[in-house]
């Protein structure tokens, strides 16, 4: 008795240890952790922008569905409510007060901010020229406006700033102190959350506050009952993605499990057997989590969700054992019989998944470790634990006739071989002619959000004038001040490129916040009061100005000479927002990502840049990532197939036997790939993992088919087990293909179709011919 039970104790102890690991593991959800590690500065900059940057904190809001006055009032009420909420760091809606705040800030600090604050500008000649320009302006149609500012700002420091701060982006229209969409049907708000973009719980809370405050404002507003709030932004996307994923995963995994369990119930007619049948998968999942956590230090959420579907094969192990157990034989005798085949099947799968270990996509390497550890554990549990737990006299009562479709195929083996070989040749031909373009090139298409949501985001970004530019300049420095100094050095370079037409405008962080050194130099360029007055009276000679008209100018210059220098904290919200979107502090230093207008001559721009500053094109970065992924997908497929062939060759010894297993598999994969791409579909990286799973599952079918002899009842049981295994797989993965999440949909579709084809090709080619008289 004792010697029968020790594997069970060992298993329980191991599972307890794994469970402890699983509970203590770190789980991460950042997409960045799933993607390849960044190497270039451009990638680092983009990653910083995605993960920690100010851009990730933006919420874009539109309100529509009511009359223009109601929408304007609603917008103002909502904004004032949100300004009191601690969840939001900035609330912009184009209102006069926040605009006035920014204007007042720029006006007050114009001498620190303006590149025109030089010693030359404050010399007699410089002042005289400025006054002459001012006189011309007074006579112009803008004379009324100029007359307001000229007494305080004769050097016109503020007007130049208004132009450079405008940058490449153009803001939305303002109607009655509220941003309005071009159509006039919606008012707009731009919010920045206090919490970082990756803190999804905090993002969700902020969105809830927004919705709540909107409902309250709408309720209090007559004639606004039909008004509608719509929001987008990275935080909204992330929260929606998480919700959709959670809902879909929960709902579909339950449904998929239910489908599989239904078939098992029909076959086993014993709840205990079903429970036992799930033990290998459950043990494998626990072991997988523990292994990934041990190797990588964290488990990615995608690894977890996706990994469990990858080791779905482990369910088949128990199916083979429980279905092939005969009434008179007992589970242990069955295991002794099928173990060589089962072992080889598990080994080929593990070898196939091992190919994923080499991937530079961290997520794929994790999936490799997860499925290898999971399958090894599952097959171990099936071999050593399960037979000891199956009650004596158990057999799958309902399984007897389940294999009939396979026998039907077998009876017509010649015809089926002819037909299926023809289909495979056609598939090969079609894929050959298809050439390139099979791969999914749009990384966005991996997002589970509906196209309408993405379109809304695009529209709101355009209306708010925060279209993400395609081209950036990127650089990295050890300190904020050094990063700003580089930005200042770039200002004349980019201005020249813009004049030459190589570039269509630019934004730089130093336009918003000059470095401390530059601010000090500008302050030093301002003469003291006595000197300024002396120079100014000389500069006035020959011009029709009243001498005492410029008292505000002398006051403001004197104040600027002694005022404090500007820091990021002293900027008003709209300017702080803009600075943060360009300048990000990462663990690798201060990274700047300065957006450019349309780059018409990239070569000229690159040639003009100082060392350390790179031109980053978003399109090019995505293209590089994509090429890497295609390369990896191909390597994965080739290495995985080779590993499986080697294992088969080692164990089966003769090429004839290897071919008997490998050829039907190859043909099934070929037909599946053709079926998935010929309809215009594209292969995603997740489908490649799906193909590995097809091969892993299908190789078991083929091995069991190939291993059958003349023994009629054994053969029938074996066929029944293969059929049942496939029914469960097709049911479970077929349900997954209903998911809106591309990962789940892709893997579900690929595996359901592929394993069914394996069954078909296996029955027609791998199994020996049906004996004439059974």
């Amino acid at each position, binding site marked *: 008795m004792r010697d029968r039970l020790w594997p069970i104790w060992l298993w329980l102890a191991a599972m307890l240890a794994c469970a402890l690991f699983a509970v203590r593991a770190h789980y991460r959800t950042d997409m960045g952790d799933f993607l390849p590690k960044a190497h270039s500065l451009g990638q680092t900059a983009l990653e910083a922008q995605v993960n920690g940057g100010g851009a990730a904190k933006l919420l874009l809001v539109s309100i529509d569905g009511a009359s223009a006055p109601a929408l304007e009032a609603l917008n103002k009420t909502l904004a004032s409510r949100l300004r009191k909420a601690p969840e939001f760091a900035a609330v912009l809606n184009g209102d006069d007060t926040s605009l006035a705040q920014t204007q007042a800030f720029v006006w007050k600090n114009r001498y620190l901010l303006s590149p025109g604050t030089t010693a030359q500008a404050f010399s007699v000649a410089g002042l005289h020229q400025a006054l002459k320009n001012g*006189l*011309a302006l*007074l*006579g*112009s*149609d*803008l*004379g*009324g*406006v100029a*007359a*307001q500012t*000229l*007494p305080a700002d004769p050097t016109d420091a503020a007007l130049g700033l208004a132009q450079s701060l405008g940058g490449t982006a153009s803001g939305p*229209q*303002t*109607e009655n102190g509220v941003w309005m969409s071009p159509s006039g049907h919606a008012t707009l708000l731009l919010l920045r959350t206090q919490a970082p973009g990756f803190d999804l719980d905090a993002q969700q809370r902020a969105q809830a506050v927004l919705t709540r405050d909107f409902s309250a404002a709408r309720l209090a507003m007559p004639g606004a009952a039909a008004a509608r709030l719509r929001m987008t932004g990275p935080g909204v996307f992330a929260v929606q993605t998480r919700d959709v994923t959670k809902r879909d995963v929960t709902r579909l995994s339950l449904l998929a499990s239910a489908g599989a369990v239904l078939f098992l119930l029909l076959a086993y007619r014993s709840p205990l057997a079903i429970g036992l049948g799930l033990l290998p998968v459950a043990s494998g999942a626990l072991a997988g989590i523990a292994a990934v956590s041990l190797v990588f230090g964290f488990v990615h959420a995608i690894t977890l969700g996706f990994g469990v579907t990858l080791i779905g094969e482990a369910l088949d192990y128990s199916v083979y054992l429980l279905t092939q157990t005969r009434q008179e034989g007992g589970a242990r005798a069955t295991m002794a019989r099928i173990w060589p085949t089962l072992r080889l099947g598990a080994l080929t799968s593990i070898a196939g998944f091992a190919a994923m270990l080499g991937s530079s996509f961290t997520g794929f390497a994790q999936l490799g470790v997860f499925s290898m550890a999971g399958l090894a554990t599952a097959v171990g549990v099936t071999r050593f634990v399960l037979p000891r737990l199956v009650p004596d006299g158990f057999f799958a009562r309902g399984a007897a006739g389940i294999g009939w479709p396979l026998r039907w195929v077998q009876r017509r083996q010649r015809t089926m071989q002819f037909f299926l070989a023809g289909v495979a040749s056609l598939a090969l031909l079609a894929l050959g002619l298809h050439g390139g373009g099979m791969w999914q090139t749009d990384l966005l298409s991996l997002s589970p959000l509906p196209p309408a949501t993405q379109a809304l985001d695009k529209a709101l970004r355009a209306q708010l004038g925060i279209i993400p530019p395609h081209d950036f300049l990127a650089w990295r420095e050890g300190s904020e001040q050094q990063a700003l100094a580089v930005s200042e050095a770039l200002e004349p370079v980019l201005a020249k490129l813009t004049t030459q037409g190589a570039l269509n405008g630019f934004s730089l962080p130093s336009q918003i916040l000059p470095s401390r050194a530059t601010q000090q130099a500008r302050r030093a360029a301002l003469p003291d009061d006595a000197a300024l007055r002396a120079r100014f009276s000389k500069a006035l000679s020959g011009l*029709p*100005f*009243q001498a005492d*008209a410029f008292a505000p100018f002398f006051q403001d210059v004197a104040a600027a000479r002694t005022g404090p220098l500007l820091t990021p904290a002293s900027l008003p919200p709209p300017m702080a927002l803009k600075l943060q979107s360009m300048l990000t502090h990462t663990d690798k230093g201060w990274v700047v990502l300065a957006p450019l207008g349309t780059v018409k001559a990239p070569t000229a721009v690159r040639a003009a840049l100082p060392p350390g500053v790179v031109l980053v094109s978003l399109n090019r970065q995505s293209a590089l990532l994509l090429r890497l992924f295609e390369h990896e997908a191909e390597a994965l497929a080739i290495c995985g197939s080779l590993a499986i062939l080697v294992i088969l060759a080692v164990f089966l010894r003769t090429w004839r036997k290897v071919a008997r297993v490998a050829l039907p598999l190859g043909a099934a994969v070929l037909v599946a790939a053709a079926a998935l791409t010929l309809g215009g579909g594209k292969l995603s990286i997740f489908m490649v993992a799906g193909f590995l799973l097809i091969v892993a599952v299908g190789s078991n079918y083929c091995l069991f088919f190939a291993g059958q002899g003349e023994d009629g009842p054994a053969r029938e049981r074996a066929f029944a087990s293969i059929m049942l295994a496939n029914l469960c797989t097709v049911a479970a993965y077929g349900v997954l293909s209903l998911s809106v999440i591309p990962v789940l949909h892709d893997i579900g579709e690929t595996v359901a179709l592929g394993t069914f084809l394996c069954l078909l090709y296996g029955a027609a080619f791998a199994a020996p011919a049906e004996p004439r008289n059974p």
Partner: protein
Amino acid sequence: MRAKSLVICGLILLSAQTAPNFTLPGLMAQLAQVNSASASFTQTKTMAMLTTPLRSSGTLSYEAPDYVRKTTLAPERQDFVLQGNTVTLTMNGQTKRFTLSQAPQLAGLVEGVRATLAGDLPELQRYYDTSLSGGPVHWQLLLRPHDASLAKMLAWMNLTGSGDKITEIDSADAKGDETKMLVNETILHAR
């Protein structure tokens, strides 16, 4: 000839004193009949911060319903074009384009002139208190802005006209700087 002049003088005197049928809606309706108009102008700006007035001259044109162009020819070439909601300003070889909603104060200013030209009374009264004096042959329309920030730029505007022609536009800002523009309409097409 002499008799005719006397009659006109008499009419002017009469209309200045008593004009029972001369109302703002009536004048507006008359102005609304003008399809397009061209004029030359001379402008004198008297500013507190300057010791001498600034003079300029050029041409004006208007096309119903919403196109106004002011071209300054001396002392320097300058173009101010208002078309719909968009202002295009060309000076010193540079062109600036902005919408009236981006410059609400300027919007009040130009709408005062444009709404008068178009005979659009509701639009005019959206921005201004109006008071009309005189008669059909010599009238004066005084505009005072409702909005305080507009009033800083424009304390009042006084349009002088005869029939459906505008002959003078005078204005002043809050500090007392005054602009006087004499208008000589040359071509005029009525509906």
